[in-house]
Each structure stands twice: as C-alpha cells, then as structure tokens.
C-alpha cells in the first residue's frame, strides 16, 4: 500500500486529533497524587489506565511515569533507566502489589508502546528479515547478513549487503534494508539520518523495502542512491558471469 502524502496526512489527522505533548506530560506529573487517591479508594480499579486515557497518553508510558515517581519517593535517588525497564518488563517485581497490577494492566492494554508491543514489533521486523533472506536465497543473490557484518567489525550494518551488486529499476543496489512498517515522513527521515545515509556513506547506493508501504513522495532519493520499494523488487538485473552465447 503506497499512499500519497495527502492521503496519509488525511488519515493521520483523523487518528491523532490530540497529539500527546510535553505540556500534557507535565500535567500528568502533577496528577500523580490523583493516582494515589484513586488506588486508595479501590486498588483493583483501573486507575492508571483511565488516567492515561483521560489525558490521551499511552498507558505504558503513563505507567513508566508513575513508576518513576513511585521509585523516586521510595528510594530518594532517581531510579536508573535500566531498573525501570526491568520493572516494566516484569511488573511482578514491583514492590507495591497494587502498582504492579496497575502497571501490568497498562502494559497489556497498550497497543502502541511498552515491552510487549516492542517485542511484537521486533518479532515482525525479524520475520520480514527472514522473509527477505529467503527471497534473496531464492534469487541466488549472495549476501552478508547483519550478524556476519557485525562479526567483521562493520560499524553500521544494513540487513543485507549484497556481495555482488544488482540493479533494480535501473539503480545500482549494494545493500538492502527491510522495514516491517509503513514509511511515513517522520520515521523515514529518522531512518535516513540514522541508517540509510550511513549505509550509503559506507557501501554506496541501496534499497529499502517498507513492507507495509510508504508515502510516495519520500521516494525522492533514487538518483542519489536510496531506492524505496513496498515489496521485493521484480525488475532485477544481475551481473552475469556466464559464458557468452555461441
């Protein structure tokens, strides 16, 4: 599914009528006492989740904030990120039983963030990499995968570096990156900055596959050396080493 930017904007506008902002974050922090009031009355009620819904904030992020405050008040030193993360991954380790339940509730009810969702995202990404790998093998294109590259000490590692470059739709391709997401403006720019250009800087032009589509207008760096596709390309030209026809 490739959308035009206009189409995408329309959808995005509908989905996010009130985007979460820093201001709302501040409000949240002030509301921490409300959480205490809430759970004081009824520990089993979904206080935290409702609080998150009320301020239009992701429940697992809300849980993180509350947890942070909780730990701060109990330990007096600001808790480290890794401690918080590990508690979010396994809420049963949270000393306060009520909070543990509240946090767990937030996490399983969050569809966008949190350790569980992160894991799903990661799994989807991994599965698509495997899919891409199989397609490459099927096409007899030899490659080095991320692990091999890391073992060799590459500082930036696309999913696959082709050992022999190919041409896709007339563009030379040295590397392929699989993205199991929709390529919207924001994520694409972040990827460009953190990954794609870095790959280009080291390995030359390459291909990005956004398996869930992308905004058409973002495919504007073809000439420069970054090609976007929403599926595995069909128009592949390979370097043939076979003997010339008699």
């Amino acid at each position: 599914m490739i959308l035009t930017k206009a189409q995408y904007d329309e959808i995005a506008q509908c989905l996010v009528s009130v985007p979460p902002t820093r201001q709302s974050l501040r409000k949240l922090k002030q509301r921490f006492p409300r959480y205490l009031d809430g759970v004081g009355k009824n520990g089993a009620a979904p206080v935290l989740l409702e609080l998150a819904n009320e301020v239009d904030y992701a429940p697992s992020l809300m849980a993180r904030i509350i947890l942070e405050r909780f730990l701060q008040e109990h330990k007096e030193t600001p808790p480290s990120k890794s401690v918080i993360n590990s508690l979010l991954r396994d809420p049963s380790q949270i000393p306060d039983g009520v909070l543990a339940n509240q946090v767990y509730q937030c996490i399983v009810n969050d569809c966008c963030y949190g350790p569980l969702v992160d894991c799903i995202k990661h799994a989807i990404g991994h599965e698509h990499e495997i899919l891409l790998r199989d397609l490459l093998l099927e096409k007899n294109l030899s490659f080095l995968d991320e692990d091999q590259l890391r073992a060799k000490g590459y500082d930036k590692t696309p999913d696959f570096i082709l050992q022999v470059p190919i041409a896709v739709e007339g563009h030379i391709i040295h590397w392929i990156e699989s993205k199991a997401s929709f390529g919207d403006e924001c994520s694409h720019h972040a990827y460009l900055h953190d990954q794609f250009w870095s790959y280009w800087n080291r390995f030359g032009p390459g291909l990005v596959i956004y398996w869930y589509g992308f905004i058409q207008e973002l495919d504007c760096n073809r000439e420069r050396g970054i090609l976007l596709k929403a599926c595995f390309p069909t128009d592949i030209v390979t370097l043939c080493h076979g003997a010339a026809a008699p």
Partner: protein
Amino acid sequence: MAAVLESLLREEVSVAAAVRWIARSAQSSEEDAGEAAALRSLQPLRKEFVPFLLNFLREQSSRVVPQGPPTPAKAPGSSAALPGRPGGPPRGGRGARSQLFPPTEPLSAAAEAPSARRGGRRRGAGPARERGGRGPGSLEEGVGAESLLWAGSRRPRAAGSPGSPSRARCDPPNLSNLEEFPPVGSVPPGGAGTRPSRRINPTPVSEERSLSKPKTCFTSPPISCVPGAQPSVLDSSPWGQGPAAGCRSLQEEREMLRKERSKQLQQSPAPACPTPEPGSTLPTRTGSLTAEPADPAKVSSRQRLELVALVYSACIAENLVPNLFLELFFVLQLLTARRMVAAKDSDLEPSPGVLDSLESPLFQSVHDCVFFAVQVLEHQFQVLSYLDKGTLKLLAENERLLCFSPALQGRLRAAYEGSVAKVSLAMPPSVQAVSFQPETDNRANFSSDRAFHTFKKQRDVFYEVLREWEDRHEEPGWDFEKGLGSRIRAMMGQLSAACSHSHFVRLFQKQLLQMCQSPGGAGGTILGEAPDVLNMLGADKLGRLRRLQERLAAPQSSCGPCPPPSFPGCQGFFRDFILSASSFQFNQHLMDSLSLKIRELNSLVLPHPEPSDEDGESDVDWQGERRQFAVVLLSLRLLAKFLGFVAFLPYRGPEPPPTRELQDSILALRSQVPPVLDVRALLQQGLRAHRAVLTVPWLVEFLSLADHIVPMLDYYRSIFTLLLHLHRFPQSLKTCSLWKRVRWMSLRWIQKLQNMVWMACLWWTSTCSTLAVLILAQLAQAFFHNQPPSLRRTVEFVAERIGSNCVKHIKATLVADLVRQAESLLQEQLVTQRQEGGDPGQLLEILCSQLCPHGAQALTQGREFCQKKSPGAVQALLPEETPAAVLSSAENIAVGLATEKACTWLSANITALIRREVKAAVSRMLRAQGPEPAVREDRRGCSRACEHHAPLPSHLISEIKDVLSVAVGPRDPEEGVSPEHLEQLVGQLGQTLRCRQVKTWQHALLVCPCMWLITRATLAQGCYSKDGANIQGLLAFSPQFLCPPAEQHLAKCSVELASLLVADQIPVLGPPTQHRLERGQARRLLHMLLSLWKDDFQVPVPLQLLLRPRNVGLLADTRPREWDLLLFLLRELVEKGLMGQKEIEACLDSLHEAQWPEDFAEELATLFNLFLAEPQVPEPQLRACELVQPNRGTVLAQS
C-alpha cells in the same frame, strides 16, 4: 632590434644563425664569419630580440579583426622601435591587440597601485615568483642571472622607492604590473590624467571566469570572482572569493570604458573595428562574423612572411617565448582573422619585391595573416600533433588551412587519427562514498569504543555535509561557511584522539582522490558543453573556426593559455572544508598524509619507452602503463595542490610585506622552518633518475600555492632556479623536445633500471649466504632486466596477492580450527569452573597456553599454500607464448616472494592473532551463555512431520496479549474469550515452538494472512516461482522466524496465562450464566502449557513468576477462592522436573513476606503445608483439597 630583423630579411644573416645567436650567448664554431660579424655588432641587443619580435608581430597584426578576443599579453623590455619611428608610439594602437612587450616606461607608483589594491583578491602568490615564472626577461638572462629574479629584488625597490626613475631595459617583465599584464577581463584603471587603456583583452574562458581577477602565481593568472558568489570563510583570505566591492569596481571600470569608447565612436565617423563588447564572454556572441575569404594567391610579400615565420617558429621551438600557448593562440587568431581594418593610405599599397624593409606592414591583408599563421603552424607541427583529438580535428577541418597548406592538413588529419589524447568532457561523476573496509575501519583499529563510535558519527556528518554541498553550492546566495561551517567545526571538535584524526584524514584524502581525480570531477565540464563537442560542430566553417578558437582560448585540463591553480568543481568543497574546519590538528595530519601519499606515488615505476614501431599500434601493456601513469600523475597533482594549499595556508596573506625590514625579519624566521615535504630533494632525485616528467607537474602545482615569501626563501629559490633551468634548457631532461615533456603522454622515457631497488634482492639477502645472494640477486635482476616490465610487475603482483591470501587462508583454516577447539575446551572448563568458581581471565590464559603453540604450523601451511597457488597465478597472467624457462623462473620468484611475505607476517603475528581470536570467541561465548549457561540446550530443528504451517511468533504474541488484556481488564461486559479460542491459541503456540525453520516464503504467507496482503502485489506480478526447487539446500542455513526475544516473551506470556487460568480470571464468552472457564477446561489448558514448557520452549521459562505476589494475589480477588489448580500446577511442575521442590518451597516462603489480607495469608500457609505434606504424588488426582477452616465457608477446592 629592428636591425637584426632587417638583416634577417635582407638575408645577410641566416635564420639558424640568428636563432643560435638569440638562444646562446656563446658563438658556435659553425657560424659563418660574416654572420658572426654582423651579429656581433648587435650583441648588446641580443637579450631584447625576442620581446621585440613578439611585440613587432602583435603590432603588425593590430589591424586584424580577430574571431575571438585579442591576445592577452604584453611585456616590457624593448624600446627599440622600427627605423624611422624611433621611440614612437606603436601604431595601430586602436586595434584590438597591443604589444606583448610595450616600450619601457618608468615604473610609476600609479602603475603599481592597482596591483597593490587588487592584491587582496589575488591568490597569494608573490609577484617575485610570477615575475620569474614567465617573463621573457628571465629567458634572456638565462640561468646565471636568475638569482636576481628569484631574490625578489625589485619588490623592495618598487615598494620602497616607487619613484625609481628608470629600470634596466632587460628587466624581467613584471607580471604583477597590471599595466603590463592586465588582468584578463579587466581594464586597467586610468591614473590621474591618463586615459584608460582602450585595450580589452579578456581571454574568454567560461562564464565563471568572466570577471576574473589577475592571478599572480606560478602557473598563471585569473581567479574567478563570480558576482553574487558567496564571500569566503575568511574574507581576508586570498582563497576566498573576492569581495563584491572588487567586482563592482571592475564593473565601474568597464562602465568607464564603455563611455570612453562611445565618445571615440562619436569622434570618428568611420566605425572602428567591432571590438567585442566588454563583458561578453565568448567570441561566439561578439556580433558580426562576416569573414573575408582568404586566398593564397593574394598573399603579398611571401618571402618576407616566410622568413619572419621561420624566426618566430625558431623562437618557439627554442622555448624562448614566455608562454607557448599564448603564441599558439595568437597564431590561431591570425589563422581565423575575420578581416583587416582599413589602414591609413600610406600603410596600404604593398611594394612588391621589397623585402629589405620593415617600413611596409608585415600583414597587409587577411591573406597575409593566414599565410603567416599556416607557415608557423607547419613549423610547429610537432607541437600540434600532441594536441587533443578534438582540437586536431578542428584544425584539420579548417578550410583556410586546407587551402594554404594541404600537406599540413594531411598531416594533421593523420595526427588526429592516431591521437589518443582526449580532453575529457565527461560530466562530473556523482559523489561516491569511500567504502568501509573492515581491515582499516573496524573497532580493532581504534583506541577505544568511544573513538570508534565517534568516528562512525563523523563519517556520517562528513557525507551529510558533502551531500548538502552538492545540492546547494550552486544556489545563489548559498555560503559554505554559513551553511556548513559550524557543523564541520563541531564535528572536528569531536576528534580528540590522534588516531581519530588520522582516520578522518584518510577518509578525507580518499574522498578527495575519488571525487577529483577524473578531469571531469576536477573541473566539471571544461568547456561547458555536452560531452561530444565534435558532434555539435555545425557545417558552417565560421562556426568551426569559432569553435577552434574557443577551444584554444578556453582553459583545458592540461593547458590553456593561463591555467590558474584554482579549485574547480569538487575541489572547492575540500578547500572550503579545510578552511571552515580551521583545525590545526586536522591540517597537520592532512599534510602528513598528503606528503606520504605523494612520496608513495612519486616513486611509481615509469612506463617503458614508447615502442619504436611507428605503425601506430601501441603495445597493449604500454597503453595500460600509460593509463596508470595518467592516473598517478593526476592524483599527484591533486594531492600536491592540496598539500601546497594547507602548507602555505598559515603564511598566506592578501599582500606582501610592506617594508624591507618586515620582509627581512619574516625571511629570517621562515628560513628556519623546515619544508613540509622535501620537494627539492624529490626534484633532484627525479632529475637524476630521469623522472622529472612525473615530479615536475606536481611540484609546480605545489608551488603554485606558495605565499609571497616563499620565492625569497633560499630553499625554494633553489627549486625555482632549477625549474627555470628546466624550462629554459629542456634538453637537460634528455627528452627529445619540450613537447615531449609537456605532453607527458608522449614522452620517451629513459628508464634506468639500475636505480630501482628491488624487493627480490632483499629477500635473497635474508635467506641465502652472502656470496649466493650476490649472484642470485644479480641473476634475478638480470632476469627481469631483459624481460618486459610487465613480467616483473606480474610476478610482484602475484607474490603480493598470494602472500596476502595465504595469511587469510591461515586465518580461515588453522586459526578457525583453533578457535573451535577453544570453544569446546571452554565448554568443559566452564562446567568445572562453575563448580570450582574460577576466573574467566585465567580461563583465557589456560586456553591460549594450550593453543598458541599450534601456531607454529602456520609457517609450514603457509609455505605449502604459496607453493601451490603462485605458479598457477603467474601462468594465468603471463602471455601463453612466454618461454617455459622464463615462466618457470618467474613462478619460482613469485613463490619465493609470496612465501617471504606470508611467513614474515605469520611468524611475527600468528600468536597474537590466535590470542585475539580466542579471546573474542571466549567473550562471545560467555556473553551468549549469560548467567545461566546450564539452561541452554542444544537447538532442535523441526520434526520430520512438520509442515511449517505454524503461525508467526509476532502474530501469536499479539493474540496472547489480547487475551491477557481482556483478562486483566478493564473490559466491557460483552468481552470475553471462548474456551475454543484459548485451546486453539495454546495449540498454535505449540506449533510455532515446534516449527523451528521456515520452509519457504510461501508457507510464511500461508500462515500469516496479513503478510499475504503485504506481498499480494508482488505475487500478482508473478515474480516467484511456484516450486521450492532449491529449498532443501536453503533449509540447512535458514534461520528461524522465532527469535530468542520473541520466544522469551511467548514463554512469559504463557506463564501469565497459566496464572490467570489458576486464578480463574479469564472471562469466557458464552451464556450469561457461565462466565468462568470450566475446571476441566482449565486443567486441560494447564496440561498443554506444562507440556510446552517441558518439551517445546528452548529458552528458560520464567515459571517462578507463578509464585510472585502479584500472580498469587490474583487469587485473592476471587470469591470463592479456589486453590486446587495452583496446587495441581505446582505438583506438576515438580513432577515434570520443571521446578525443584526446594525452589517452589523458597518461592512459597517468600510469599509470606508480602502483605496479604489476614484470611488470605492463612489460606496461603495452608497451601504451603499441603504442598509440603504430599510431596510425592505420582499422579495428580483431581481430588478435593479441603483446606482448614471450612467454617469460613470458603470453598478451597472442589472435585
């Protein structure tokens, strides 16, 4: 002066004698006594002859209306006038061209003023240098007088005593004097009371140079001053673009000029020659193009023209003219002259037969001009034949040339056909990044992780900056410094460690070479034309003439009348980067790196002499060598230019020091500073080794960027002296002609092998006894001496590659084996160590001590490898016709060299290598093992029966998460999970866990409808084959969809699901009465989960979660509380060996620490007791578990 010419014309003196007289002060014995006498009387005038001649020709041709711009040149030195017009102003001054060497005038302060004023925009070359660089004066004086030139002796005089009344006639031309050498495209401003010169002498080049300024440097003049171009980083920097004010003043001058001319036009009714409009860039746009036809029959005074052409040609051939391209340009102007401006009556009327007089004009018509030009061109054929292909074609197709000299035309055509010299007009290639090479770029090459990651970021910033530059540098108003300066400096600021600097410099230098090496990359399109110039040439001859002229007027990659040391195209980026970075450390590292690379490239083995066969078919090898040479030469010039730029950057200022004292003190200081690269030694070496052809071009680039003071420093002065000597006496290079030197491609090399230090000698020295060494080394040297150089290169190449491959091979075989051994040893050790509690550091030592001795095998294996591989490679690379004896010798030498290379490396490094690899393997294993290595089991694959239809892990996690969230709530009353769905889910989980490999993508699609949708489009295009032909082959290596993190989450989710089942917290869809799962169903599901935990999960399952307060607490909320499922589960865990009895007891124990409602705590204690009481229940019975305190009415368990 004229007397000399006159005597020549009267044939009193032969041309040969005259040229000998001009060129050498000493009389040669073969000279005719009469001639000698005639010339001896003119001896004092000897030095002035060339300037006179050149001025004479300019003056004579002043009425010619050229196709293009007038020749930009004039020089001082000769005041000798024609007889009858002593000291008179040059006639025909109205013409487009003025003297090359104007009559001497006192050097006035006014004349110097513009020089000083413009100094700020000039690229920092000093006047002294340029003065020596080109001036005919220097030619006349020869080497002996050079010290005067290079000393810059006139600078103080000019600066200190501007009113110096007169100067010696033979003074070298002052190129910094704008009156004498006006800037291309500019007009000298009129001094007080002086009319502005009407001469407009732009050498049209390209649009970007249309307003160029004088370039006062060794190689030549102009520097661009693009209107509206960004001010440079440092406006005071001579390398920046000139300030806009400078351009404006130029415009003002032009405006003055325009007014002046319109005044003149009003005064004279007869329209003057259509002088090109000032500011117009190319002659193509200069208006009327009507040209008179030229006819050989109408040439007046042929003989006289022939004679003058002969003398002129001889001067060119003897390298007496200051700039050959200017002369060539001049001649082509004559060839392509449009018409003559009508002269005064007295000037017309040629007197036929009068040869002995200079009274009548030399060029009386276009016919004369063309005749003269063709004559000169005939004499200069050798020079012409080295021009590039395109120019040769244009010349050969010139109809005037054909008409006047069909023979020359034929030769030119032949030269064109045989020429391989091309001026590349290829489009600049788009930027290509320097590729990442693990050997030099991976972590092992950095001092710390931090340095490694910093450099990683820097590489990205560098290319980001480069891309932005590429996108925007042509936008009007964009400024490098403003746009990128701060980002560059921020990036440079991060380079703290010296090693990071060297990494960055390596990247910078490689990118520089990569982007700027090709002529296209260096200058963009040279003529601003599409690649194929020839195809664009129309049929009309005027168009062709114009093109021809433009071509010679426009600077080309290698020549052009005055190529400036500018930084065209991509080079500009690198220059501006250096300026913006303004980092001392960076500059120092860059200089080090550039110097090293220059030294390395400068030692390139020169190509073999051009094959002597004249059939035009060059040896293939030779062409390859030439190509390689071209690449090396280009690289050297580029590197040297940047070295010069960086090295002289701190000293470069807009103007030379104002006073003698200041200058002396600077000189005293600078003379103490050692040169950045010992270029003098390299030049001398180059000369001794007859390699000047390689050294001189880059040296000139290097020096072209020197600052004002450099030419006055003894060290550099000696270099300039040497260069001048070379310029003046090219024969000292033992080359056939100047041109063979200038056009390097055609140089005949005198290759001296004895100077080459050859690796083989070293090898033999180290392995054989002294006596044998000598003999063998000599033999080997002798062997290669009589073989084509390609043979030696092949052998060296093979040895180099095989040696390197050998090391890699050892790494991949021997070392890899040892690492595997280390891994298995480690496994054993880890088991014992866990029991004994050892230290991993010790472990490594033990392993290394066991394994390193095996490294000794590397040498043996290495020798075998080289022995096996080298001969085949040599054989494949040498021609098949190579005699057997030669082949076998070459093979043996290759084997020896390769072995030496490999074994030297291996014996020095093998132990360290094994150690490093083992260490890496150990840490990898320890990391992978994690804190609980024992839990790891060997990975299992799919069962034979597996059809790989399992759902994808992501899908499953998502499904289970949904169930969990419904169970945890909050939920709507109608929300729930059907028992069937739950069973199906747990069943699918089993499938996924058991399917460890994906058979094909098709199966993946089948199991995941969403993925089917994703790739539906692809499938529709029929890109996939239906059969899984090569699948079996892939299977072995195909990794699984299920990655450890996903599996861990699945494990955790399954435990959470079990907790919810035990606590009966899962809302069930169904009739309103039944909101709970039946006990039997729950038990069945728990059974399934237990089986999965036991048999299918390959990651540790966090079963202890079941007994965490949060999970057990779920039971607290249920009314009535039912404990039987929990008890059942615990017993099953013990039964299946999933958890130990002790472990469960510990968990239950810790549950007491949590705060519970009193009744719940009591029930929990009872459960604990029950669990302890019946530890070994062989078969978990679904029996009642009535706990104590039934009076509470709590049903703890039911059957």
